[in-house]
């Protein structure tokens, strides 16, 4: 005899990835708009023809306020602030991205490993805690300046700051996930560990990883700006937001506000957008499974 026909009610909702993306756009238009802005900024910084050569001083023009010719004005050397600000986007954001990706690549597996193998991991985690107690910005400062201002060291420094954070986050997520009933079902089915990690653990921590990644990006942008503000890392004439703020800051008092303001604004906007995005992702993440 056959059992009863399909008979409980079914709620309908888009389950396909494309449908999910559409839902996300609908639910968080500001965050999506912001992400779009950053992408356009990077593309423009890479490919768009800038009105002036960002690295070329123009002593004839000298310092000048925003005008139709120079939208964001020019700095002391007469270089175009708009062109420099846009060009700096790629320099700053690519470094931030590289640092973030490196911390992801190391932090996530480490977090997974420490949550599976408990015995040795407790020591590692304790070590990492001690490491985090160290003023990390100073560490980054020391590292980069000792390396003789190598850019890759900026990336390494960002990773060093963020790896322990990822590790902690993943570890605590996975440890609570391990208590979940479906993980017990997984064991009862005999799912091997690698598959468990790939199919059951990762997808369930993915949302939180993504949310954290956007935060890390924001944090990295600030670190890079701070370093170059202190004259470390990206060195002039290569444009970077931090060094532009630094060189413009002395002009602030004399009334030439535009040199520092525009790059400062861009740092602010990028950080704000990434924070919005992070919130949006966490929100979407909790909603889609209920």
């Amino acid at each position, binding site marked *: 005899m056959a059992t*009863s*026909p399909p*008979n*409980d*009610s079914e709620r309908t909702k888009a389950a396909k990835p494309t449908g999910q993306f559409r839902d996300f756009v609908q639910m968080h238009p500001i965050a999506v708009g912001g992400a779009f802005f950053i992408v356009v900024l990077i593309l423009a910084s890479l490919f768009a023809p800038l009105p002036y050569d960002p690295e070329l001083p123009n002593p004839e023009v000298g310092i000048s306020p925003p005008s139709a010719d120079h939208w964001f004005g020019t700095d002391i050397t007469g270089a175009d602030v708009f062109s420099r600000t846009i060009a700096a986007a790629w320099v700053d954001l690519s470094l931030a991205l590289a640092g973030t990706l490196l911390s992801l690549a190391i932090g996530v597996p480490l977090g997974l490993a420490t949550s599976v193998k408990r015995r040795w991991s407790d020591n590692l985690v304790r070590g990492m805690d001690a490491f985090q107690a160290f003023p990390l910005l100073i560490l980054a400062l020391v590292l980069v300046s000792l390396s003789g201002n190598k850019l890759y060291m900026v990336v390494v420094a960002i990773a060093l700051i963020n790896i322990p954070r990822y590790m902690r986050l993943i570890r605590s997520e996975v440890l609570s996930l391990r208590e979940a009933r479906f993980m017990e079902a997984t064991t009862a089915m005999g799912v091997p560990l690698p598959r468990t990690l790939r199919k059951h653990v990762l997808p369930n921590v993915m949302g939180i990883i993504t949310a954290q990644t956007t935060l890390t990006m924001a944090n990295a942008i600030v670190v890079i700006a701070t370093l170059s503000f202190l004259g470390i890392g990206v060195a002039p004439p290569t444009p970077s937001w931090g060094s532009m703020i630094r060189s413009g800051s002395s002009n602030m008092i004399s009334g030439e506000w535009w040199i520092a303001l525009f790059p400062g604004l861009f740092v602010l906007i990028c950080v704000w957008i990434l924070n919005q995005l992070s919130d949006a992702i966490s929100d979407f993440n909790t909603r889609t499974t209920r």
Partner: protein
Amino acid sequence: MTQTLLSVRDLSVEFVGHKSTVHAVNGVNLRVNAGEIVGIVGESGCGKSTAVKGILGLLQPPGQVTGGEAELAGHGDLLAMKNKQLRRVRGASVGYVAQNPFGSLNPIYSIEVQFRNILRAHGEPASQKIARERARTMLANVGIAGPDRVLDGYAHQLSGGMAQRVVIAMAMLLEPELIIADEPTTGLDVTVQRQILDLIRDRVVDSTRGILLVTHDLGVIAQYCHRVVVMYAGKVVEAGSVETVFGDPAHPYTSALLGAIPRPGHELTRLRGSVPDLRVIPTECSFKPRCDYEFAACSVSPNLREIAPDHLVACHLSERVGHGTS
């Protein structure tokens, strides 16, 4: 003559969302007499808790009462009361036991302090000693062996059964005429469940008090209630004395529920489908899609009618001669 303690007429509750509105309770009528335990049964999501919270003015937005009245003997319409007045009635004249006992206990105060707060809130300025004494008596009444240990403790130190008893003791502290208990025993062991129900029953039998008991356990209704109200999709579909409704159910939903109780040697009734979407107001009988007896008349929503003294049914079948679903 039996005195009516609570009389609810045409109660409606909606949850207004920006995309859709959930019509959780649609014109519910019920009555609790003195000395009576009245049970409300129905599947999950049919609006039992919402109705009860509506009566007590405890709905959280977006939930709102959109119509009806709830007359409490000697106090007037609860739904028309101002918040301040309602707060005084709640506790003093109507005790409420919520679905989740831990939700109604404050984790940061000791149990004693919570008892004292109830007394204070209702203007019974008892000394600390008297307050403790009253709380102790109440806890002993609900069968807690070491009331002192419980009074000095905190919510998280209690087992589910203990917490439930504490909440019931709190609801009974001011000796209200009416107690409304929302699934007071769901999730508890049968042994504990019976203790609690016995205790609730002892408060009512041969008294002027009454109890409105929400449950989805038909055994609880059969053994403890005098009258029963069967709810389906936010409406009352059948109401009457327990003997009548269980012995000779007139609504196909009631029959189906009774048939779904596992009994050795009996086939289980398979109720098709599930509760309807409460976002749309149906024009037809809301049970029609799942009903084995539906016929032409069922495309119009039936009204609750009295088919025998104190036996109300909302089903077109009962209008036909020789009604019956068995």
